[in-house]
């Protein structure tokens, strides 16, 4: 019997794609689903998923929890737990479409919640940390429940299946967001589990990743010192936690995050001007355990935009392009063409060179 | 361009040619050779008789030596030096010179001896031709009488001992090799030579010669078939003397090898040069000295600047495998310390005076002897030398560590 995510480390090859409107204009979810079609062969049907930003404008002040339950009773248990910590503004089944390609689905709910002020005060932490801890708690302690999305005004949609089928299953054409990421999975070591599909997200951070990092356990054992628990044992999970740790907890800038996880080689650092060299040396030394090696191309999404990043040797393909206010990112050029036949300024970022696209503030 | 003339064609002449050519590659050189051979190693004539070398190998330099050095070799006897004209006359010819080097060597000294004319097979032992002539006269059962127990006489004796019936050596002196050995060492050597079958009549001389018999002053008689006269040599100084150069037992030269005449140099056995071991001029008729003097003269003739201030008497000679090296000067008992060490069949005597090694003789194991020679030549003050080690062994260990390291090119 194959072990599923969380029981064993799961390496996988993949396809990724993303699109963002810098002006914050709405993009329908089926567009990103289209992008995954030409990259069909990069997945093996064992997982696909999407993250959309700006999709819940009416509920933007509430954390949107997307949760898989394997049983009704689990949902009850989980809801009880949520109620202890949050005010649940709204709870509902996520609408899906029955299609033959997607089967064995769990019970999929979403909750819009606000942390109870009393709880925040009691634990002396901010609401983000509170939410993050709750997510870790549910995912590690509540067997049969799995929170796969927990940000505000954003949501992940993922399933076992090919990504374009997953898009159809989740009726993505009914959502509109200013940025989208997508993932098609080719795992080699899992029977396929819904929770194990990507994107992986925590709060509004989401990561889609193509690659297999060789630094995994070094990164995992380090990041777990800070309260994270890598339950899925996937690269994407640990990368998300690393970014969360650096961005939210250590307050690094995105550029700084990039120079930690895809740190320049010492020879490159030593050739930099003194100030820059000092800074890069500092980051690389202090966070040496968060350097990620082995092939990866990731698109990191947050409520303010997208960051695309390759490993420092660029062992995975990744390409970007533009059209008007839109920026496209994908494993293959074909995926971008599928979204925008007129796309221009194709560019393959170098290893370790972050491509950061920010959405105009205040749009959503 | 100058014109150089060298009278003589021995080792000193060869040195002179090489000395000139070390400075001047072009000027004309004429060598006037009385012997009709290219330069050869004179001391090898006894080795030739002993079969240790061949006529061909006796050549001191390679066949193309003269050609390579652009030297004209003339077989003739130089007859006259005309200083005014700057000419040397030889045969019926003359040659001009700008600088002249007299390297005329020496000749065997034959003392007047009663009845010498009656001896048919009589030889001197100086040149290749002497050696070849002697060889012809030798028979398996020849009884050979050699007059003179010096270097020449004894080397001759060694060379022929195995080829003849008997060899008897007579000398006026009371010991063999009297010019280079002291009594103690001479005794050791004599014993060795006798053990090989040589007979000696010492402190004696030939009173009268008959056809095949010599009657000694002591009254003894020695019958012989072949007589070799090796009493000694005399420097060939006549040409120089005639030209007006100052001459004593040899042609007087300064440390630059110049005679008392302008543009006339001299080198080799015909000269009397500076001997640093006695701080005076003396004839040092040894091969190394001849070459070095010739070379030095050559350099100076060609316009260079060279001098020899540390020449000393020194000798290395071996008989039937027993080697003997010696250098410097000795002194009579009581004038300084004589360190003596005897070993199986050998002896070592070091003469130490005024904190200097003045001379030494080693018979037997001569390993490292050059180091003794060096400290004599360099007049090394022995306060900078470990005397015990010096006595013990001729090794660089006798020097201070820094001195030794410097000698060996190492870090001091």
């Amino acid at each position, binding site marked *: 019997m194959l072990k599923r995510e969380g029981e064993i480390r799961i*390496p996988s090859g993949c396809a990724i794609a993303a699109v963002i409107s810098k002006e914050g204009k709405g993009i329908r979810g089926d567009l990103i689903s289209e992008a995954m079609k030409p990259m069909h062969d990069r997945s093996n049907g064992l997982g696909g998923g999407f993250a959309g930003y700006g999709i819940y404008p009416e509920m933007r002040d509430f954390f949107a929890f997307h949760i898989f339950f394997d049983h009704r009773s689990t949902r009850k248990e989980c809801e009880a737990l949520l109620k202890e910590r949050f005010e649940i503004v709204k709870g509902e089944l996520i609408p899906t479409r029955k299609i033959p390609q997607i089967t064995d689905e769990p019970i999929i709910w979403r909750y819009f919640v606000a942390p109870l002020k009393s709880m925040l005060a009691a634990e002396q932490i901010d609401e983000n940390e509170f939410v993050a801890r709750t997510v870790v708690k549910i995912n590690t302690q509540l067997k049969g429940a799995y929170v796969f999305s927990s940000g505000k005004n954003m949501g992940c949609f993922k399933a076992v299946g090919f990504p374009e089928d997953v898009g159809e299953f989740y009726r993505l054409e009914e959502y509109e967001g200013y940025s989208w990421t997508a993932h098609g999975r080719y795992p080699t070591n899992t029977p396929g589990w819904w929770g194990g599909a990507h994107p992986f997200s925590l709060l509004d951070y989401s990561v889609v990743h193509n690659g297999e990092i060789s630094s995994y356990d*070094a990164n995992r054992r*380090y990041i*777990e010192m800070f309260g994270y628990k890598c339950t899925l044992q996937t690269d994407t999970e640990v990368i998300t936690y690393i970014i969360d740790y650096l961005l939210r907890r250590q*307050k690094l800038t995105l550029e*700084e995050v990039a120079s930690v996880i895809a740190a320049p080689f010492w020879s490159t650092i030593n050739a930099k001007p003194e100030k820059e060299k000092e800074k890069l040396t500092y980051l690389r030394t202090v966070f*040496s355990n968060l350097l990620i*090696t082995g092939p990866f191309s990731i698109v990191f999404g947050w409520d303010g935009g997208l960051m695309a990043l390759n490993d420092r040797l660029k062992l995975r393909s990744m390409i970007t392009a533009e059209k008007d206010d839109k920026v496209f990112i994908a494993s293959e050029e074909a995926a971008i063409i599928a979204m925008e036949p007129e796309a221009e300024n194709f560019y393959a970022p170098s290893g370790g060179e972050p491509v950061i696209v920010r959405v105009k503030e205040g749009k959503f | 361009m100058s014109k150089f003339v060298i009278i003589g064609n021995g080792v000193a002449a060869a040195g002179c040619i090489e000395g000139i050519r070390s400075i001047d590659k072009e000027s004309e050189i004429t060598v006037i050779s009385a012997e009709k051979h290219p330069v050869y190693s004179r001391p090898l004539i006894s080795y030739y008789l002993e079969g240790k070398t061949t006529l061909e190998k006796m050549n001191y330099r390679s066949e193309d030596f003269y050609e390579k050095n652009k030297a004209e070799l003339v077989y003739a006897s130089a007859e006259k030096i005309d200083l005014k004209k700057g000419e040397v006359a030889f045969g019926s010819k003359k040659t001009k010179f700008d600088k002249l080097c007299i390297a005329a060597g020496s000749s065997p000294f034959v003392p007047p001896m009663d009845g010498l004319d009656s001896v048919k097979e009589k030889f001197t032992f100086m040149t290749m031709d002497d050696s070849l002539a002697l060889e012809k006269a030798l028979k398996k059962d020849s009884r050979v009488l050699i007059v003179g127990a010096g270097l020449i006489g004894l080397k001759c004796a060694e060379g022929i001992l195995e080829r003849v019936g008997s060899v008897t050596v007579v000398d006026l002196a009371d010991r063999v090799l009297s010019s280079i050995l002291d009594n103690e060492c001479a005794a050791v050597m004599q014993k060795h030579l006798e053990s090989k079958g040589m007979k000696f009549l010492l402190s004696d001389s030939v009173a009268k010669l008959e056809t095949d018999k010599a009657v000694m002053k002591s009254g003894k008689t020695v019958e012989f078939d072949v007589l070799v006269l090796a009493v000694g040599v005399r420097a060939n100084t006549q040409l120089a003397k005639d030209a007006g150069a100052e001459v004593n037992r040899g042609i007087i030269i300064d440390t630059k090898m110049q005679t008392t005449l302008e543009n006339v140099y001299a080198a080799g056995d015909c000269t009397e040069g500076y001997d640093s071991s006695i701080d005076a001029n003396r004839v040092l008729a040894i091969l190394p000295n001849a070459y070095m003097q010739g070379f030095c003269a050559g350099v100076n003739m060609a316009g260079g600047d060279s001098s020899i201030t540390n020449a000393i008497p020194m000798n290395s000679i071996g008989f039937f495998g027993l080697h003997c090296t010696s250098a410097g000067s000795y002194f009579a008992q009581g004038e300084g310390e004589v360190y003596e060490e005897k070993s199986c069949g050998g002896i070592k005597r070091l003469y130490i005076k005024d904190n200097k090694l003045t001379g030494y003789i080693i018979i037997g194991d001569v390993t490292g002897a050059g180091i003794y020679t060096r400290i004599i030549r360099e007049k090394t003050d022995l306060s900078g030398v470990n005397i015990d080690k010096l006595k013990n062994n001729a090794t660089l260990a006798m020097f201070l560590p820094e001195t030794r390291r410097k000698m060996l090119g190492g870090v001091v």
Partner: protein
Amino acid sequence: MIDQYIYPEFEVVRNQNRCISCRVCERQCANEVHRYDTDLGVMLSDETKCVNCQRCVSLCPTHALKIVKSDCRLRENANWSDQTIKEVYKQANSGGVLLSSMGNPTPLPVYWDKILINASQVTNPPIDPLREPMETKVFLGKKPEKVLRRASGELITQMPPQIELSMPVMFSAMSYGSISYNAHASLARAATELGICYNTGEGGLHEDFYCYGENTIVQVASGRFGVHKNYLEAAAAVEIKMGQGAKPGIGGHLPGAKIVGDISRTRMIPEGSDAISPAPHHDIYSIEDLRQLVYSLKEATDYKKPVIIKVAAVHNIAAIASGIARSGADIIAIDGFRGGTGAAPTRIRDNVGIPIELALAAVDQRLRDEGIRNNVSLVVGGSVRSAADVVKAVALGADAVYVATAALLALGCHLCRTCHSGKCNWGIATQRPDLVKRLNPDIGSRRLVNLMNAWRHEIKELMGAMGINSIECLRGNRLMLRGVGLTAKELEILGISHAGE
């Protein structure tokens, strides 16, 4: 002597057909095993004196010599081994504590040999270190918990003091006195050329070696030998030695006979006096006392030098390490029970302490569990024998390793384990000038540099195979390891899976 009861342990086998009687063996044997017999015209040997250091074997120009273990055997007895019986004889002869040198030679498990390393296939690419950059640089020292910025937003890049190493290997502590001047010179020069560190041990720092200070770790041990302000200031880091793997709980004793000349001066003790390092530091009877010493040393060095605490791997090492990580120390060095020594009581060496692999795994995990792994760097030693051992140690969680025995081997040591005799034929563990000169630091340092460069190449090859191009991504990366032939408990402690899992 009949009362010795002990047959020579080794036989000198001389092939008389090959021996040319050059007498090199005779001249090179400080134990005076060989001698030339002028009557017989052959070389003879006195095997009772042979320690099997192989000096003669190595220098014999015709390879006429070999030293073999004597096959003269006591009657077989599975309970009473030859070794055990002979030790009884020795003690009955002498009435003394048995002394040994170098590391524990008993057949206890070597976990390095039961751990295998991963490699990339298909799903991610191995990296060719000849074509791609491959980084082995490490910084040892405390890392700040929180990133700080100026009001302008600019990062404050000041860090606690660090040791920068070009590769995660250092030469561990061996004192001047226990090893020779030339051995120290070789280590110092090699460390400098390699961009790593060597360690003075507790013998002080010879004045000639201050120029290598940037690559020197100076030790402060219970005897406090050679410790003074300049000594501390000269170094890259200061190490407080609490214990040693070969002899946990035991002090040191360098006999007065060896305290001569430079050694006496460097140790700052009178010539001829025994150098006794007490078992404990008499000012450290508990963890809070250690904290005081750590800060005393930091005060003395203006907080510019990392402080290392070196302890032996003993049963509760994880708890000890946790205490040290909170003591203000920057680096913990743990020495396993197979580590070497110049002299130790045999019983202690062979029976006290635990394997470094288990100690390392336990300490690394414990510090992570407590969230204080970043407080300290972790250096381990005690028989790290090859590049593979280094890679395994780093993957288990070490920041760097200490090697000493391998370094000594590079210098010529043949592990004869008689350092305590002071007659080291290889010029390493001796102070006899004629023996010391046998180790030319030109050769010694070159061989050390060669060894480390070879290891560095191998480390890079192994990393490249795993698809890792920087050593920090290997640190604690236990997924890269698998065990073979280990029990579930051993795997649990090592924090690795069994091969095939």
